[in-house]
């Protein structure tokens, strides 16, 4: 289940979506706006997407994760627009019979989402300035 939304993310709904009597393990990852990044204070983030493609890419990621791990359910929600400090910009929930698959798939989904889904964030700093984040690919970067 894939969702791109301008509303706050409902993590309770996400957990319900991956509920299954066959699932012994559920992993939920929530990414939220952090107050401090490398010593600078953030007031809010603003997210923009190439929406049709972002939805299609998230569906491709879900399918790839389901081929790679024996998942019961998988749900991904990404928020667009303004996301104040402390609120979630992304949430990923996966369920599986055993915890190995749930942890590995959850980690892979957020890592791959951050590399490949056409969504961008703009930092809006406490000093009033703002900047779009476009990470330069560097071989040594984790």
């Amino acid at each position: 289940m894939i969702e791109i939304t301008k509303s706050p993310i409902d993590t309770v709904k996400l957990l319900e979506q991956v509920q299954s009597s066959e699932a012994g393990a559920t992993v939920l990852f929530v990414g939220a706006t952090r107050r401090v990044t490398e010593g600078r204070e953030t007031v809010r983030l603003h997210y923009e997407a190439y929406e049709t493609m972002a939805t299609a890419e998230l569906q491709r990621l879900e399918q790839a994760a389901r081929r790679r791990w024996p998942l019961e359910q998988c749900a991904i929600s990404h928020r667009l627009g303004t996301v104040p400090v402390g609120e979630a910009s992304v949430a990923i929930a996966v369920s599986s019979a055993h915890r190995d698959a749930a942890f590995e798939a959850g980690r892979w989904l957020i890592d791959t989402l951050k590399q490949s889904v056409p969504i961008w964030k703009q930092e809006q700093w406490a000093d009033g300035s703002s900047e779009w984040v476009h990470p330069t690919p560097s071989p040594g970067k984790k």
Partner: protein
Amino acid sequence: MKVIVKLFAGARELAGAEEVSVELTAGATVGQLREQLIANYAQLRPLVGHAMFAIGAVYCDDSVEVSEQAEIACIPPVSGG
């Protein structure tokens, strides 16, 4: 042929437009589109050099031929999540 290229985030801001049109020779590749975009909009050079391109909402590498019919987008390095 004339193609419309969608721009996002920093690229949109640098160009001051949500999309730009680029004149290409018939059969031009994504690589040639990338170069022509930089030639027309010098301010895009730092982002477009690292950008990916999508045709019909699918990532394409520089060797792919640009299709006039499909939606074409310039995808600067992403930062979702």
